[in-house]
């Protein structure tokens, strides 16, 4: 244990749950009569996916994938798949769920990956959007909260693997 690095709370647990209810209701409406495949990106998206799907009132399939992106240059991002999904997405509607959209490089590469696998549609859902960090244009279909380009922790977001279990989102206190 070192210095307490948990700074100002930006989004409270109550706000997150309330927003997940709204997003869940919207996804329920948008996918009426369909069975979307919800793909959470490990590890950061786990708390968000778990809260979100409780509020989707309809049939879904849940899967997870783990990727690492290596930036070759500003235009391209190479994905390394640590663990790909096991569900077949051919002809299916996919919703990618992540904790935060920053550069947009990983997310757009994952959308391409899903389309190549034959997905009928691919939508993106992020708990947080950092528009100021965007390097690659990526359309987010469902956004929890829009924040500034600050270093944040909690509710899945980590610093060196820590703080993911905080029930809220807070600023990380740098030296």
């Amino acid at each position, binding site marked *: 244990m070192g210095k307490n690095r948990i700074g100002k709370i930006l989004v409270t647990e109550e706000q997150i749950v309330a927003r997940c209810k709204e997003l869940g209701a919207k996804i329920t409406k948008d996918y009426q009569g369909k069975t979307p495949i919800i793909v959470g990106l490990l590890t950061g998206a786990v708390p968000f996916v778990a809260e979100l*799907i*409780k509020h989707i009132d309809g*049939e*879904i399939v*849940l899967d997870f994938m783990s990727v690492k992106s290596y930036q070759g240059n500003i235009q391209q991002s190479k994905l390394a798949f640590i663990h790909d999904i096991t569900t077949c997405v051919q002809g299916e509607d996919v919703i990618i769920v992540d904790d935060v959209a920053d550069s947009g490089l990983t997310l757009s590469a994952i959308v391409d990956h899903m389309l190549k696998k034959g997905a009928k549609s691919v939508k993106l859902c992020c708990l947080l959007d950092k528009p100021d960090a965007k390097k690659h244009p990526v359309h987010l279909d469902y956004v929890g909260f829009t924040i500034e380009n600050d270093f944040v922790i909690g509710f899945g977001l980590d610093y060196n693997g820590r703080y993911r279990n905080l029930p809220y989102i807070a600023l990380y206190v740098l030296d």
Partner: protein
Amino acid sequence: MSAIIEQMKQKGARSVKVCCLLNKPAARKYPIPLDYVGFEIENVYILGFGLDHYGYYRNLPFIAVCKED
């Protein structure tokens, strides 16, 4: 579960504890120590809150008995 505990120990973990949302004692074939248990239930087919039936129902915010045909 006991295989996972064994693997963690082989990886050099100092301690390994097990935490399960549900415990089905009547289904147990290998003895495993559960350190943290949410709820004890009978050996019935259930779904919801992560538990599935052919990949469906994981999103239910509760745990229910699966109606079989």
